[in-house]
């Protein structure tokens, strides 16, 4: 711990001085694990390339985030952790922290302050949902619909998903209970503040499944984020849930006749963890990278590439235009006031407890 702090202090100094880091205490290679595709590309542009250039470090990308938890556990059991920094969703970060597979981060000493001197812990605020988690982006799971297939009145609320009379046709939903159960309860008349209390009861779970039952025959269930944009493009579904960045790409980059239904979008977080069991040199390098990659400017830079909101409050005003399309990115952020009129925050604690139980019920219901 002491060693880390000393190292951290020295690296902070060197970074502050803007010197090329030839420090023998840090490894010269960094293996970063992320989700691949456009998301990894955005990280490469905003963090990896500038960092590698400034520090002479070789950065190795590994697109394994989808299996990160299982793989990290296996690596830790084999006592051979080959990853230095891993990009995971917040729920996975909590589990990795619980399992002792991710190191604890002290936001104020290990992360950069905001330019105005605000401490990192305050700048990230409530988004620091786990002791091991360094938030990076806010993304949301929300619905997109085919403007040409939903008739004359475009849907405005999430309950349009459950209204097969007004909007006949197939819908795409994710093949897991998370988010679907919440939306079902919301559209079954449960108040937003009560959703998780209701969902914690057997009756509440039955109620949610009964609501989903009303559209079961009209649903195509997806398991990969790219499925919904594809299904929308093929006209297989008229609306479907997916991550907002995927829909942005479909609308702005591929120019599909698709529009966003931001109503009741579910906010979720994605960010970094550093695995436990790294050698001091590698850990120092990982911490140095994290300090750089999660500062205010870097997080704002990422939004030039992809429509996910920066996790720092201080980054929001710095969000600019898309790097190749040249359009303003702010209105496409899930956190933009126009989009965030009615939002829902993923309840990590609840799903950590109920995930297995409700998933078994959900899968049994699906198989019926």
């Amino acid at each position, binding site marked *: *711990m002491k060693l880390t702090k000393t190292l951290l202090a020295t690296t902070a100094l060197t970074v502050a001085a803007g010197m090329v880091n030839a420090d023998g205490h840090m490894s010269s290679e960094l293996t970063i694990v992320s989700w691949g595709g456009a998301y990894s590309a955005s990280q490469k542009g905003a963090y990896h390339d500038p960092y590698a250039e400034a520090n002479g470090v070789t950065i190795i990308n590994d697109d394994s985030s*989808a*299996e990160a*938890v*299982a793989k990290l*556990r296996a690596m830790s059991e084999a006592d051979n952790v080959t990853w230095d920094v891993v990009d995971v969703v917040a729920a996975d970060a909590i*589990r990795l*922290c*619980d*399992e*002792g597979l991710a190191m604890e981060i002290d936001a104020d000493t290990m992360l950069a302050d905001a330019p105005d001197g605000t401490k990192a812990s305050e700048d990230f605020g409530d988004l620091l949902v786990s002791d091991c988690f360094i938030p990076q982006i806010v993304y949301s799971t929300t619905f997109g619909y085919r403007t040409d297939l939903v008739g004359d009145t475009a849907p405005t609320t999430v309950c349009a998903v459950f209204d097969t009379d007004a909007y006949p046709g*197939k819908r795409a939903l994710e*093949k897991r209970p998370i988010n679907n159960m919440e939306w079902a309860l919301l559209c079954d008349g449960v108040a937003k503040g009560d959703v998780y209390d209701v969902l914690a009861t057997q009756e509440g779970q*039955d109620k949610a499944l009964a609501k989903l039952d009303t559209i079961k025959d009209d649903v*195509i*269930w997806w*398991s990969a984020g790219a499925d919904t944009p594809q299904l929308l493009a*093929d*006209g*297989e579904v008229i609306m479907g849930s997916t991550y907002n960045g995927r829909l942005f790409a479909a609308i702005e980059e591929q120019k599909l006749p698709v529009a966003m239904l931001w109503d009741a979008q579910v906010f979720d977080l994605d960010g970094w963890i550093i695995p436990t069991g790294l050698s001091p040199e590698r850990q120092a390098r990982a911490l140095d990278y994290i300090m750089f990659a999660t500062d205010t400017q870097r997080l704002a830079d990422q939004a030039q590439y992809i429509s996910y909101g920066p996790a720092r409050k201080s980054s929001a005003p710095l969000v600019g235009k898309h790097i190749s399309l040249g359009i303003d990115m702010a209105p496409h952020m899930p956190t933009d006031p126009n989009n965030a009129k009615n939002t829902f925050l993923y309840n990590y*604690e609840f799903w*950590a*407890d*109920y*995930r*297995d*139980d409700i*998933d*078994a*019920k959900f*899968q*049994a*219901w*699906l*198989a019926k």
Partner: protein
Amino acid sequence: MSDISADGLDANGLVLAADGTPLKRSLARAMRRQKLRALLLVAPLLIFVLLTFIVPIASMLFRSVENDIVSNTLPNTVQELGRWDASTSELPPEPVFEAMFFDMFIAAEAKRHTRLGTRLNYEQTGISSLFRQTGRKLDDIGKVTKKPLEAFDSAWKDGETWYAIFNAGDAPASKNLMKSQRGLLKRLTSDPASGDVNFSPRADVTKLLPKAAREYTAWAIFTAVQDEKDPATRDPWESVYTALILDLKTADLSGYTGPNEDLLKAAQAADLPVPAFSEAFADMDKDWATPVPWKTIQTHSGLYTSGYFLNAIDAQKTDDGVAWQPENKQILLKLFGRTLIMSLIITGSCIMLGYPIAWLLSNVSARNANLLLILVLLPFWTSLLVRTSAWKVMLQQNGVINEVLVWIGLVPDAERLILINNQFGTIVAMTHILLPFMILPMYSVMSTIPPVYLRAAKSMGATNWTAFWRVYFPQSIPGIGAGSILVFILSIGYYITPEIVGGTKGVFISNRIAYHISSSLNWGLAAALGTILLVVVLALYWAYDRIVGIDNVKLG
């Protein structure tokens, strides 16, 4: 050599080799040497298979019964709970709460309590966050005793004070306590916990203040080994303060002489308050004031458990025996059944489609046969994912097949066929992918059947059908058998194709195994499901051997 007769027999009539040893022994030796040489030749492969295949599988399967995490994390609690009768529906007695406090304290310091919480959450929803939150709040109980003691005499604020009391120095040390606490930490953290600690518990203090000595020793080892700090100068955990106050309630210090004896005696005389552990736990979370978490810990405290296997067949281990899961959670048996039935259907359709192709292959000229064989093998050269995704394009409602059917007017536009995201989609895509595994063994068997047999049968008046059914078909059965076993066993463990085209009703048990391996991290359950699948396959193989005979399987 004198008793060897001319015909090479010894006095007992045994055949002898040229060097005079009995031929039987000589032969055995030669054979042994040959076997050894053969073994040496295959040794690299054998070791490779053993290390990369058998050992990992065995260790993975072992997880399906392994359960030492509970007793490693909460050793004293498990012991105390053993005396509690769960059927009375009363809360466990105070010593259980006390043991839980000390166990949990160390576990929380080692960050292992949340791991146990995850494990027990598989059995009882809600335990995960209960453990996580309790771990955070545990210090508060400790502070209840720490503050009054420090306020009573500020000497207790010094790490040196504690070290002087408990460290043996030149006095006799309690080796047993040291050993048992090292063992505890080793099991808890899976770290050897063997380094130098610069501390050994004083034997007489250990006798007088057993709980405090136990906790202090655990803390000292942990501080030295895990944190790599010197315990001599540092403040112990809050739990050590609590343990000391508890010990002082009953300890007889009258005959005690040692470092800081006055301090100890004064603290005893002050009669400082002990926390009521059961109330403190109830304050932390009301769930602790119900028997539920305690029953869960007690039920699942064994070193080995049948719990995962019971979960794998939709049952569960409860405090009063085995019970079925509630009906709305029963899914795994259904999936096992579905996996078997659909694998049979896929095998059947592979036979139906593959047989004529194999027949064609073995009955055309060699040049054409090669061309056809390339066509059969062509799909092998494309990625599995690409082939499966291609089926999506073909089968979906706006896909190629439906568009064609609508265009030629066979199907009205409003009633397009649902060909994907159901069992039909899985069967079609998997049949296509597994077909070569059926065709190849069939072809290699059929190409060995002499065509003269069919001609002979026909020349003796058999109809085409009789000649085929009575003469040709029986000879091709070994090929069907080999192909069926291959296809069936491959399809029973298939994962990616059902995931992509199976929708909700076309998924297999392997999709649940994948979920438990990579998402829920319930590796015990995944291992149990895998073991059951393995046993089912072996049983079917055995049944096949009994019914058809494994000699009847030929790959060529």
